[in-house]
């Protein structure tokens, strides 16, 4: 019932007249925006494993409130009504931060994205494929509560981030028994001019724009919650480091990321995890369509040989003329793991509709 009420509130905002509503008074503004994502998912399961084979789901129903004062102070609260509290763990609150801006820096306090990985920093509506790579899902910290200092130089060609976080992921009110923080840093250089999320994902660049990034995080903590994310699910020291490269030229975009994590668990042997992905997309405005293909290869545990999990994703997105709406079909093909001779996950087909407002 709570979910239905929440979605109804969101639908109110999706009518044309309510879209991107901004209230302004003197130097203050309050902006409402968001997106919703509804999908059908078909999994190519083995006979006898029919559970979750056919399903309809709402993956996102996000509403963002953004406050701004003269571009000097701004704050954001983002809620996801598709993740209303159904258990002790609530994911309703996505972002909640306050930011101070200067000519060459931003200082952000609160629950926010950890500055690690280019594709992790991008907002979900601008992704070319339904989900971020598996590599990012299992290995990167994603969101946490903390402080980020973001600097930009040379016309925003050089970007630096440094952050310190609680280390337990989003919506965790306390630190763990060890009480040690997570440190994160990222550097990004773009050439011949700056590369923003918009220029990378939606605006065709008539000249090739190259971007190089390097990032790392370190933490030493106890497990707080059961989670498929290796960072949150292991006790001990964790060093994550990675590099990324991207190029955007006309309607074509390419992105490559490599990440590796060295784990020193308190109870078991040291091991590492890592992998890379390659993603190529092409956005053809004349036919309002975007096509993308991605290959990834991840080894989540170096103690197991021939344990690589590989996947190939294809996605086609069609932008509906005159509407802030896109329809996307993604097919995810997972390869057999050499060690087990089984697929690490079923192949899937996902058809979704995304409404931005």
């Amino acid at each position, binding site marked *: 019932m709570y979910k239905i009420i929440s979605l109804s509130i969101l639908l109110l905002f999706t009518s044309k007249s309510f879209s991107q509503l901004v209230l302004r008074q003197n130097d203050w503004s309050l902006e409402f925006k968001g997106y919703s994502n509804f999908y059908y998912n078909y999994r190519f399961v083995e006979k006898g494993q029919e559970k979750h084979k056919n399903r309809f789901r709402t993956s996102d129903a996000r509403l963002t409130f953004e406050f701004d004062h003269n571009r000097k102070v701004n704050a954001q609260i983002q809620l996801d009504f598709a993740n209303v509290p159904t258990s002790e763990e609530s994911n309703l609150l996505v972002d909640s931060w306050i930011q101070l801006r200067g000519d060459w820096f931003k200082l952000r306090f609160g629950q926010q994205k950890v500055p690690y990985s280019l594709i992790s920093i991008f907002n979900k509506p601008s992704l070319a494929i339904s989900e971020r790579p598996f590599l990012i899902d299992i290995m990167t910290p994603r969101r946490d509560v903390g402080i980020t200092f973001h600097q930009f130089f040379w016309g925003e060609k050089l970007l630096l981030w440094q952050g310190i976080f609680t280390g337990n992921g989003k919506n965790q009110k306390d630190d763990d028994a060890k009480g040690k923080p997570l440190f994160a840093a990222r550097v990004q250089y773009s050439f011949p001019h700056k590369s923003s999320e918009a220029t990378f994902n939606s605006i065709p660049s008539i000249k090739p724009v190259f971007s190089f990034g390097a990032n790392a995080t370190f933490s030493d903590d106890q497990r707080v919650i059961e989670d498929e994310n290796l960072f949150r699910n292991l006790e001990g020291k964790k060093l994550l480091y990675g590099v990324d490269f991207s190029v955007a030229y006309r309607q074509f975009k390419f992105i490559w990321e490599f990440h590796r994590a060295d784990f020193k668990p308190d109870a078991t042997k040291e091991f590492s995890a890592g992998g890379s992905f390659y993603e190529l997309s092409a956005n053809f405005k004349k036919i309002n369509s975007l*096509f993308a*293909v991605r290959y990834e290869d991840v080894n989540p545990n170096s103690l197991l040989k021939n344990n690589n999990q590989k996947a*190939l994703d294809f996605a086609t997105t069609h932008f509906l003329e005159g509407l802030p709406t896109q329809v996307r079909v993604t097919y995810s093909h997972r390869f057999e793991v050499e060690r087990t001779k089984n697929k690490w996950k079923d192949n899937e087909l996902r058809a979704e509709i995304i409404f931005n407002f």
Partner: protein
Amino acid sequence: MFSRKILFLCFCSFLFSCSNNALQESNSQNIFLENVKRINVPEPSDIFLCSDGNYFIVSDKGFVYKLDSGLKIIQKFSLKGQDFEGITVDEKNGFVYVTDERPRKIYRLSKDKDELISSFTISENGAANKGFEGIAIDETGNLLIVREKDATAILTVSSEGQKLSETTLNFASDLSSITIFNGKIYVLSDEEATLYQLNKDFTVRKKWSLPVVNPEGVTFKDENTVLILSDAEAKLYEFTLEDRDAFTIR
């Protein structure tokens, strides 16, 4: 087996789309690059060339600059806004008009003194960063203001701030600047990297594809020489326009 077929079809679809569109994409050849100059203004977002050879440039940082004919900054106005995106000069009356995108505010400054004369706000509910990207003055003295997107439009506003009309445009995904030269209206699209010449009813008369990254400002030197400002590169491109009827959109 079924999944392999899907895999194959996806791959073929991707390849077909790439090749099909590669054939469709062809840039018009009626524009010639003459000169490129660097501009020492951070994040320049619009430009106006005065008859005395001086330039007025606004910056995303919320500042107005006056530059000499050699593009050297000779004055930085004390007015500080949030996100200046459009500028035009009323040379007859000695005014400079500037648009501040986020608060939807228009400032009127003195052209020759560092003085704010007046300002007004146009009430709008759209997204903060999809506001007023350009401004020009028509022959009647009214202001033509372009809205970037959702929906792209030209607003006709009196010089005192009264909104007279709004025309929604649908030929470009965004608009980044507007200028009027010799009675002809030109608008620029950043995402399409295209310059459009419009009829009086704001329909497209001609268009030119631009080899410029992030074009945010347009002004004319003479009938056939256009200056295009690149925000991302902080460069001023000078082009000669070939004005052939073959490129007229009917």
